C-alpha cells in the first residue's frame, strides 16, 4: 500500500490523543497517585486536543474532494470510517467542556468534571476501535484483516498517552513514579503486541494468482500488465518492501518506540529531568510513526495478484 503521510498522522496522533484523554479520566477518576493537579489536567487535555486535531486535519488532507467531507458522517450504519468520524467529532465537546470546567473551577476531580472527562475518554476509546476496524474489515489485505489491528491501535494509543502524561507530570515538577510505571508497562505491551502481529502476518495465506485468475491447477505468470506506465492501482497498491529492509526498519521502530522511551522515562523519573521526559514523548511518537508507515507498506492488496504477484 501507498503510505500516505496524511493517513499515518490520522491514526498516530489522534490515537495518542484519545489514549491520553482516556488515561486522564482513569487517573482522575481513581485518584491514582494523588490525581492530576489542575495545571497538569489542563496541559494533558490541551495536548490531547492538539493531537486529535492534528490527526483530524491531516485526514482531510488525504481527501481528493474534501468539499464532500461532511457527507462522511451519513453512512454510520455500515461504514467504520463514518463511525470513526462521528465519534471523533463527538469527543470534542466533552474534552472542551472538561478543559473549561477545570480552567474555571480549578477542580478537575469534582463530580461534573469527572463525568465530562470519563465521557470524553470513553468516546476516545470507541474512536480508536473504529479506527482499527477501518483496516481490520478489509478482506482484500490479509495483513490488516486481523483482530490484532484494533488491539494494536489500543496498545499504541495508550502507550503514547501514558508517555505524554508521565512527561506532563515530570515537566510540572511532581513525583511521577506511578505514571512512569504505567507508561513503561504500556510500552512493553506495545512491543509484545507488535511482535505477535509481525509473527502473525509473516506466514503467507489467502488468495494466490491462481485463485485470482481461476486457473487453480496450473502455474500462472504475467506476460503483460496491459499498460505502458503506472496506473492508480499500481501507485496506490504496488508498494512493497524487501524482507531484509523491513527487518532493519522494524529494529529501528523498536529502538525509537520502545527502547529510547523506556530509558528516557527511567532517567526522567530518577533525575526529575524534563528534557528526558520530552525526549521520551518525541521518540515514541516518531517510533510509532515508523510503525504506522510499516503497517501501510507491508500491507499487500490482492489486486497485486493481477499484476503478476504470485501471492500476497
Amino acid at each position, binding site marked *: *500500500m501507498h503510505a500516505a503521510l496524511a493517513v499515518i498522522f490520522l491514526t498516530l496522533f489522534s490515537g495518542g490523543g484519545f489514549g491520553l484523554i482516556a488515561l486522564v479520566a482513569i487517573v482522575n477518576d481513581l485518584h491514582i497517585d494523588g490525581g492530576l493537579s489542575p495545571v497538569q489536567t489542563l496541559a494533558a487535555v490541551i495536548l490531547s486536543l492538539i493531537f486529535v486535531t492534528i490527526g483530524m486535519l491531516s485526514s482531510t488532507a*488525504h*481527501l*481528493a*474532494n*474534501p*468539499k*464532500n*467531507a461532511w*457527507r*462522511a*458522517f*451519513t*453512512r454510520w450504519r*455500515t*461504514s*467504520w*470510517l*463514518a463511525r470513526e*468520524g462521528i465519534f471523533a467529532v463527538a469527543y470534542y465537546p466533552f474534552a472542551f467542556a472538561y478543559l473549561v470546567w477545570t480552567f474555571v473551577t480549578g477542580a478537575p476531580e469534582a463530580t461534573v468534571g469527572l463525568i465530562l472527562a470519563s465521557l470524553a475518554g470513553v468516546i476516545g476509546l470507541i474512536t480508536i476501535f473504529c479506527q482499527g476496524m*477501518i483496516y481490520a*474489515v*478489509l*478482506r*482484500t*489485505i490479509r495483513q490488516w484483516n486481523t483482530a490484532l489491528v484494533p488491539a494494536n491501535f489500543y496498545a499504541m494509543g495508550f502507550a503514547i498517552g501514558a508517555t505524554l502524561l508521565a512527561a506532563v507530570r515530570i515537566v510540572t515538577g511532581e513525583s511521577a513514579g506511578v505514571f512512569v510505571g504505567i507508561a513503561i508497562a504500556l510500552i512493553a505491551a506495545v512491543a509484545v503486541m507488535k511482535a505477535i502481529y509481525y509473527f502473525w502476518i509473516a506466514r503467507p495465506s*489467502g*488468495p494466490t494468482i491462481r*485463485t*485470482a*485468475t*481461476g*486457473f487453480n491447477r*496450473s*502455474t*500462472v*505468470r*504475467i*506476460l*503483460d*500488465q*496491459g*499498460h*505502458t*506506465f*503506472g*496506473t*492508480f*492501482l499500481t501507485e*496506490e*497498491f504496488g508498494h512493497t518492501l524487501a524482507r531484509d529492509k523491513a527487518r532493519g526498519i522494524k529494529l529501528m521502530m523498536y529502538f525509537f518506540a520502545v527502547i529510547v522511551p523506556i530509558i528516557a522515562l527511567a532517567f526522567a523519573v530518577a533525575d526529575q529531568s524534563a528534557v528526558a521526559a520530552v525526549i521520551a514523548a518525541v521518540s515514541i511518537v516518531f517510533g510509532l510513526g515508523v510503525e504506522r508507515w510499516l503497517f501501510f507498506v507491508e500491507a499487500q*492488496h*490482492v*489486486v497485486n495478484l*493481477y*499484476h503478476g504477484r504470485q501471492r500476497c
Partner: protein
Amino acid sequence: MRLGLVIDLDTCVGCHACAVACKEWNTSGTTAPLTDYNPYGAKPSGVWFNRIRHYEIGEYPYNKTVNFPMSCMHCENAECVTVCPTGASHKRPEDGIVLVDQSKCMGCNYCSWACPYGARELDRVSGTMKKCTLCIDRIYDMEIPEEERQPACVLTCPAHARMFGDFDDPESPVSRAVRERGGYQLMPELNYDPSNHYLPPRVHAPIPTEGLKKKAGAKVKEWVNRVVER
C-alpha cells in the same frame, strides 16, 4: 435482475478494443470525463474502467496465453459499498449495478481498498472515484435500437468474447453460457460473489509439432525445392 458480463477466455484475443470502446463511450457518459494524465508524455496514465492483462498458463509445451479483461464485477457482496462513508457508492436494488454518485464522493480511496478486483480508479482531476457503470446510459436508452442497448465493450468485441445479460434469469444467454461452459467467479474465497463470470478456455487436443510422418507429396516438394535453384 442481476446484470453483469460473461468473459470468454477461450475466444478473447487480447486486442484491448473493449477497453478503448469503454473509454470512448464513458469519457462523455454519466461519470465523465475519464481523465488522462500526461497522455503524450514519457509517463502516460489515466482513468480506465476496463483493463486487459495477459497471462501465461501452464508450463511449456503445455502452456497457453490467456488474455484477461477485467472491469467492475458488480458483486452481490459489494464491500466497496458498505465501507463508503458518504453514501456515494451504492448498489442499485433493481438491477445490481454498482455506481458511484460523483456529486457525493469525497475521494477518500477507501472503496478502492475494499475492492479485490481493482475495478475502482480515482480521477485526480475531479477528485472522485470512478468505475464501470455497465454503460447504464446505453442499456436503458430507449432512443437507440434494442440490439444496441448493451455495454460498449460488448458491442465492440470483435471475437464475441463478451456477453451481457441477467444472471437472475436461468435461461438468459449469460446464465446458459455459465452453466454449459463451467463459468466461474474470480477469487471466490473472498466471498464477494461477483456477478461477472469467466468462461475457461476449451480443452483442445494438442496439435503435434515434432516427430511427424511426412506425406509423400511433401517429400516430393522438399526434393524439388532442393534441386531447383532459384
